[in-house]
């Protein structure tokens, strides 16, 4: 009997603790000041900051130099998520290895998938490489709904920014005109920048490149480059000797002189291939913040295009 009553006392204690935490610890007054936006990647944070301006507070979970497929689900991210009003994700299963458990555990009902504060921006963008027919893992770590690296086309950047502006306006109607104005300004700036980028890349349209991972279809499509092979034999599978030899032969045959590598991949194999073929290895940035210079979406393209044009000129 004493055991039982002590068990009940224990249960009572737990209930009391729960009550104290739930009711007494204040559900911090969400003063209608700034919308707290958390994004999965730095690029989305950049778009949200561009259109949100002073009315939002933006934070990204992943860093720009990190492989967005393999972010760790650290508890410190829960601290960001639990106070967020809006969570913006890339979608297309890019974050499938780490974001779902964070969303489940954060205890924030506003940002659960399907809730008002959850935005998947892939719905706004032009998505490439949507697999047709049967999809199996024999193809490697394929994304069955298309290539998730879609933000690397300025046109898609504009679409994502517009989608985010609309979402922000929905969440904060009194700021609708402000967000619209900021989007228009961003879009105009993007128009100008795009003309310059197109002009810089024009001489190199049709040039062939090899990439490490399939991160660049939208970028290469926009600037008319042709991706003729990947160093990974299949997405997510590390390079092996047989495939590397095939790539070297193909590059020599087709006179491919540029290899694009993301900043989070090992350079050993790309460098070895470059030595064999006389090609140049270009560590291109897929995301804002990949290097110190790439502080925003415009600087990201400035950086990448400068590297690309230099490499193409050197290997003319």
């Amino acid at each position, binding site marked *: 009997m004493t055991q039982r009553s002590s068990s009940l006392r224990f249960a009572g204690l*737990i209930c009391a603790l729960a009550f104290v*935490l739930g009711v007494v610890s204040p559900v911090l007054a969400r003063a209608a000041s700034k919308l707290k936006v958390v994004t999965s990647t730095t690029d989305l944070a950049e778009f949200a900051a561009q259109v949100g301006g002073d009315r939002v507070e933006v934070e990204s979970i992943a860093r720009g130099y990190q492989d967005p497929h393999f972010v760790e689900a650290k508890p*410190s991210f829960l601290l960001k998520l639990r106070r967020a009003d809006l969570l913006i994700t890339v979608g297309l299963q890019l974050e499938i290895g*780490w974001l779902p458990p964070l969303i489940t555990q954060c205890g924030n009902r506003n940002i659960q998938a399907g809730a008002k504060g959850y935005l998947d921006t892939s719905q706004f963008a032009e998505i490439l490489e949507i697999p047709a027919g049967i999809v199996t893992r024999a193809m490697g770590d394929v994304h069955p709904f298309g290539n998730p690296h879609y933000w690397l086309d300025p046109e898609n950047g504009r679409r994502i920014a517009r989608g985010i502006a609309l979402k922000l306006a929905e969440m904060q109607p009194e700021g609708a005109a402000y967000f619209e104005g900021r989007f228009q300004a961003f879009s105009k700036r993007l128009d100008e920048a795009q003309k310059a980028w197109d002009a810089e890349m024009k001489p190199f349209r049709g040039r062939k490149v090899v990439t490490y991972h399939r991160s660049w279809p939208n970028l290469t499509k926009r600037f008319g480059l042709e991706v003729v092979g990947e160093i990974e034999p299949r997405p997510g599978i*590390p390079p092996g000797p047989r495939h590397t030899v095939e790539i070297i032969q193909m590059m020599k045959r087709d006179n491919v002189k540029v290899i694009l590598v993301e900043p989070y991949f090992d350079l050993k194999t790309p460098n070895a291939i470059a030595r064999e073929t006389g090609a140049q290895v270009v560590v291109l940035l897929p995301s804002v913040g990949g290097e110190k210079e790439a502080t925003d979406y415009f600087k990201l393209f400035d950086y990448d295009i400068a590297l690309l044009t230099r490499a193409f000129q050197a290997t003319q």
Partner: protein
Amino acid sequence: MRTICILSCLVFLAPGILQAQATDDTHERLKALEERVIALEAEIRALKAGQASPPAESAAAPTVGPPATVSTALAPTAAQVPAAAPGPSLAQLPVYSGESDTAKVFNPAISVIGDFLGAVGRDPNRSMPALDMHESEIGFQATVDPYARADFFVSIGSEGVELEEGYLTFTSLPGGFVAKVGKMRSGFGVVNALHSHSLPWTDRPLVTEHLVGGHEGLSDSGFSVSRILPAPKDVFLEATAQVFRGDAGDVFTATRRGDIAFVGRLRAYRDLTESTNLDLGFSYARGHNDVGTAFVTQLYGLDATLRWKPLRRAIYHNFLGRAELVWSRRQEEPAIQRAFGFYTSADYRLTRRWTIGGRYDRSDRARDALLTDSGFAPVITYWPSEFSQLRGQYRFTRYADGRSGNELLFQLLFVLGAHGAHSF
């Protein structure tokens, strides 16, 4: 279909329009069409992915049973199909045309994990078959409604089929609470909450076997409430309280309905740098043991984990060091048994495909704390891809009676189906 129509319109109309006058106006219209194609493609993707697209979702929200409305809307089509094809043998089979396509949308994500074990060598106290399809775990995971999600893990082992875990998680509770109800692995310590396929070894540590629930650890039916606590900046502090039926492994036994068990855990986590972090935990468990209702077993646990993973080379190198200490206080006749056990382990990822590690074990036995067993186990793991792994482990155990075990264990793990989350 609509996409194809729009695309073909675009293809046929485009040259004519451009011939007429290649002005900004036609450019604008083409752009508008392009935008529409993109929007339609997004809608198709959303349908394929099983989520209603944003506009459709808001429209469907007021109706109580979306699946029902969908199936009635499609009923005429479904009825037409058998009428059009009255072939005798084929008509026997139910025709799941439109209905099954829409039903699939709500199916849970299904995954299967195969765990194959091989063993050579001898161990006087632990008998493992030479070759064993140790466990096949089938997972079903889905969102239940706007307030909850559910996870089921059915484990098929050599001893039969068992519900390893099956619980509902309330993700939308007020006040930042997260609650789980169902059968689950209890939150005592770190390693107890992990499924065997996410362990860095082929087996569980000696301390788990002796003090924390035996072969498979503590797992029971009940509910769990957790919440992030207010803490100094950058410190993650989380408290979890769990109430269980009171039957878990060989630690807790509920002879009467009132013999419930409690588990509490406090976890503190901090990022030391962007690539290094420290995770500390204190756990407590209390329940009645198999001697009788009046006899209580209490477990106290401390754990520490240090992780290092450089963000720029996260897929190539990382380190994880961990230690868990467990004190057990078991009431029985004639006296209380106070046992202590621990393990420490370290794992280092050498390359994208190879990981090496090791574990040191030492633990008293819960029912006879004077007997202490110890051992060590170096481990090597190879990953052909993210979805399979091969592991070899040498296991040396020195038992209290002076005998020892020398074994080589091999494991093959493979994953089918839905892409699960990476373990942290």
